[in-house]
């Protein structure tokens, strides 16, 4: 960072004083508080809902079941971003433990919760299924009945959706390149292994919070969401309104990590607000967080064809994604995980089948790393297994097969700005890989190193729009629908607006996303905002700077090229007395604010039959490495060193970028060592922060470090999550090397490590 300007967060003051008003802190006079009655069984028919007990609680204003929704004219009480399969409230059937059955609105949150607990629901249980492979068997209970004539396509499905009708598969992604059989025939060695990653939860520290009210027939929702425009569209469709009749306002959030992507509780508060005629707010508790959205439990089988000299001839991938009771964006997760499973390698023959499968578990959707953590665990563990089988160093084996600039990925797209090699080499340097992948171990401990590389796509195609304005006081404002969830979006967008206007970034105001005031943006996901929205903001700010020069040129009777932009004024170069302030220029136009608007798009898409096309308009690239120490008596894994290298292209803000890297790595460490949602016949057993562990101070590696790789003239690459997916695989590779055992399943709990050690010893004896 030496020699560079550092840019602190523009809203740090609000955060350290806790004056920041997060989604959960929003309140409106006269508002009611909501609570949810949830299913206690994983699959069943609703026999009876008895609400009379709830009404005995003082302060209860409404108790709403699916039957009551008929009182809302034009309501289509089902929604979903990619498949419209989720009822606002369960009717006839519940599909997982936690499914929403009834809603209560009361004068205070305590009364609402107490009343919800007094609603009695009777069920007739149905057979349930929890494993994505079992759920695909012909005799598995069907969780939804998707039919070709009623595909229930949601508006946010931007790719060819391929359900397998008559099964629980709601999307089957295929990517076929070359001739897979020929690829295996050409191999000297064929290896196959199956890998598993469990469901996980985001554990954003702030829970989901939303408030809704109706105003002159318009619906207003104030919600912590990463998807203001998707949420607006989905709510409009639900209520039979034009999108403009719905307004979504997004305050800053206390973290999200994908959990607040697409509507989660907004339809429910909107319904309650309609039926009560009052504003209604819902804040989930920690238990509810665990049954609201998860990361997909995944099973991935990889078959790899190899030549003796360490080339990959063929790769066959079968991936099964347990998307839970409702598809959410699972179809896209299976798709992105599908092409992501190939990895950044030159492989002439590829066949990927990736299945998104309904199960009777909480819905799974977006999670930082978005499908890539799961497939990198499988693919990069497989690379180490293959290197061992070939007797090659794992780094050398990877370097031999890495894609280079200008080469084609399995989708047929040509890769540019390729830096996988630098990422891996940076990691190898940090780990002192040249001294070998096995480290000298202290007495009674086993030490080793491991590494992994990642390529991750960005949502393609997509669009971001921004407006930058200057008012009569000369104050600059950015209007953008990128949400602030702690990643520092406001800061980075303020910087990018300030640059062309040559003003201090701390003077730029960035307004909260509000679909009435801020222009369209796809969503704040897939590490796209700094690149996509950043470009839109920069272009709008450049246009504003040009406009100010033009107006000043007229006013000062000078040629635009003789003018210079100063903070708040335009002056004739070298003649400081010939100046005009921005405020004067704006006032002269007669408007309150002079605004410029810009649109930035990325283009591409894949053929739904072959998986060929442009998967991502540019690629996030990174690598991670770990040195671990295993106690063979207890199976305990200690991380001595964790290093990640991420290709940033150009870093906009060193501080926030570094935090994104470090946070991603530690979240990856949690996935590697202990994060796992456990269910017993569909009953969640890990529903609080005592049973579901996330990393604390005491779990940190002895040394944590990272690199942000830059390239002169390169475009900005997002890095909100790139450092996460390679971490579990790097740690897994290190642990497997340390104990000389094959590890295929996350997390690497002491029990699992001990079992693997024991299995290896039995084999050996």
């Amino acid at each position, binding site marked *: 960072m030496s020699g560079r300007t550092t840019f602190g*967060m523009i809203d740090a003051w609000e955060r350290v004083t806790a004056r920041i008003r997060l989604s959960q802190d929003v309140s409106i006079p006269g508002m009611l508080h909501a609570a949810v009655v949830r299913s206690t069984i994983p699959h069943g028919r609703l026999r009876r809902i008895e609400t009379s007990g709830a009404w005995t609680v003082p302060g209860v204003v409404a108790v709403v079941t699916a039957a009551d929704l008929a009182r809302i004219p034009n309501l289509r009480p089902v929604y979903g971003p990619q498949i419209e399969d989720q009822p606002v409230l369960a009717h006839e059937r519940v599909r997982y433990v936690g499914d929403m059955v009834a809603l209560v609105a009361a004068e205070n949150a305590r009364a609402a919760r107490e009343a919800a607990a007094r609603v009695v629901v009777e069920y007739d249980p149905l057979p349930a299924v929890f494993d994505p492979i079992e759920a695909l068997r012909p005799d598995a209970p069907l969780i939804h009945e998707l039919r070709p004539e009623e595909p229930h396509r949601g508006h946010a499905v931007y790719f060819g959706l391929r359900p397998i009708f008559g099964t629980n598969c709601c999307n089957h992604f295929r990517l076929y390149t070359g001739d897979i059989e020929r690829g295996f025939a050409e191999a000297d060695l064929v290896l196959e292994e199956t890998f598993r990653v469990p469901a996980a939860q985001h554990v954003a520290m702030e829970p989901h919070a939303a408030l809704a009210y109706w105003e002159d027939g318009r619906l207003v929702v104030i919600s912590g969401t990463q998807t203001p425009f998707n949420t607006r569209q989905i709510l409009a469709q639900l209520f039979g309104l034009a999108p403009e009749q719905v307004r979504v306002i997004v305050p800053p959030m206390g973290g999200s990590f994908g959990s607040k992507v697409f509507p989660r509780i907004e339809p429910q508060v909107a319904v309650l607000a309609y039926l009560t005629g009052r504003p209604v707010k819902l804040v989930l508790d920690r238990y509810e967080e665990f049954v609201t959205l998860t990361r997909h439990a995944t099973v991935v089988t990889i078959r790899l064809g190899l030549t003796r000299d360490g080339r990959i001839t063929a790769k066959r991938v079968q991936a099964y994604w347990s998307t839970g009771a409702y598809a959410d964006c699972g179809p896209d997760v299976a798709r992105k995980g599908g092409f992501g499973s190939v990895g950044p390698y030159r492989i002439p023959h590829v066949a990927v089948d990736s299945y998104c499968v309904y199960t009777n578990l909480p819905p799974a959707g977006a999670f930082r790393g978005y499908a890539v953590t799961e497939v990198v665990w499988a693919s990069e563990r497989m690379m180490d297994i293959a290197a061992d089988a070939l007797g090659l160093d794992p780094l050398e084996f990877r370097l031999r097969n890495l894609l280079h600039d200008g080469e084609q990925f399995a989708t047929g797209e040509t890769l540019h700005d390729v830096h996988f090699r630098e990422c891996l080499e940076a990691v190898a340097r940090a780990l002192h890989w040249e001294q070998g992948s096995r480290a000298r171990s202290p007495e009674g401990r086993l030490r080793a190193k491991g590494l992994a590389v990642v390529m991750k796509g960005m949502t393609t195609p997509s669009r971001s729009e921004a407006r930058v304005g200057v008012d009569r006081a000369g104050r600059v404002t950015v209007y953008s629908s990128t949400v602030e969830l702690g990643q520092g979006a406001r800061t980075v967008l303020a910087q990018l607006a300030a640059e062309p206007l040559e003003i201090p970034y701390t003077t730029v105001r960035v307004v909260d996303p509000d679909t009435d005031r801020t222009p369209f943006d796809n969503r704040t996901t897939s590490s796209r905002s700094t690149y996509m929205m950043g470009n839109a903001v920069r272009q709008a700010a450049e246009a504003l700077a040009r406009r100010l020069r033009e107006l000043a040129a007229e006013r000062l009777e000078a040629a635009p090229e003789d003018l210079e932009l100063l903070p708040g004024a335009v002056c004739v170069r070298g003649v400081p007395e010939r100046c005009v302030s921005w405020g004067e220029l704006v006032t002269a136009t007669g408007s309150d604010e002079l605004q410029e608007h810009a649109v930035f798009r990325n283009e591409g898409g894949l053929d739904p039959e072959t998986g060929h096309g442009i998967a991502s308009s540019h690629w996030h690239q990174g690598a991670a490495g770990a040195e671990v120490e295993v106690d063979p008596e207890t199976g305990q894994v200690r991380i001595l060193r964790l290093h990640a290298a991420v290709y940033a292209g150009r870093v906009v803000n060193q501080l926030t970028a570094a935090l994104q890297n470090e946070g991603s790595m530690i979240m990856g460490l949690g996935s590697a060592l202990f994060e796992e949602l456990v269910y017993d016949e569909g009953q969640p057993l890990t529903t609080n922060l005592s049973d579901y562990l996330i990393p604390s101070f005491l779990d*940190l590696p002895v040394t944590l470090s990272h690199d942000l790789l830059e390239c002169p003239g390169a475009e900005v690459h997002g890095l909100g999550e790139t450092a996460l997916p390679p971490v579990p695989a790097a740690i897994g590779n290190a642990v497997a090397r340390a104990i000389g055992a094959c590890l295929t399943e996350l997390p690497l709990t002491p029990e699992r490590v001990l079992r693997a050690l024991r299995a290896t010893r039995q084999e050996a004896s």
Partner: protein
Amino acid sequence: MTAVGTERRVIRVVVNGVPYEREVEARLLLSDFLRHELGLTGTHVGCEHGVCGACTVLFDGEPVRSCLFLAVQADGHAIETVEGLAPSESELHPLQLAFWEKHGLQCGYCTPGMLMVLKAFLAEHPNPTEEEIREAISGNLCRCTGYQNIVEAALSAAQLMRQS
């Protein structure tokens, strides 16, 4: 029959130096009292059962998890929340300054709890080692950052506070 804890009690409590007298239900949590009765929303509730530390406040100077305390237990005691840290509207406490300057936060949800734990800790350990700091805040969870800057911020705050 009244439900358990629904009887009401009058409590007198001093929060951030301001005396309050309020009638509350016996079962009301201190965290809910602060957030909903007094509108002090800076105290954040993360896990609701004493694990994450986000809701930490000072109770007669000692850090406690306000989600594990009842409001009636605060009767006759002094509570300090994050809102009471800064000496004025335009100034920051050295801990707040250090968290800002060292960038010891992202979303800021865990920050109030970190600040309150550290305030009590640094009062007793004005010159702590990095190890001691890690131990002191090991009961506070942060999901955004990798914790590195939080430790740096704490060290920097200790230095600022020694100088002042």
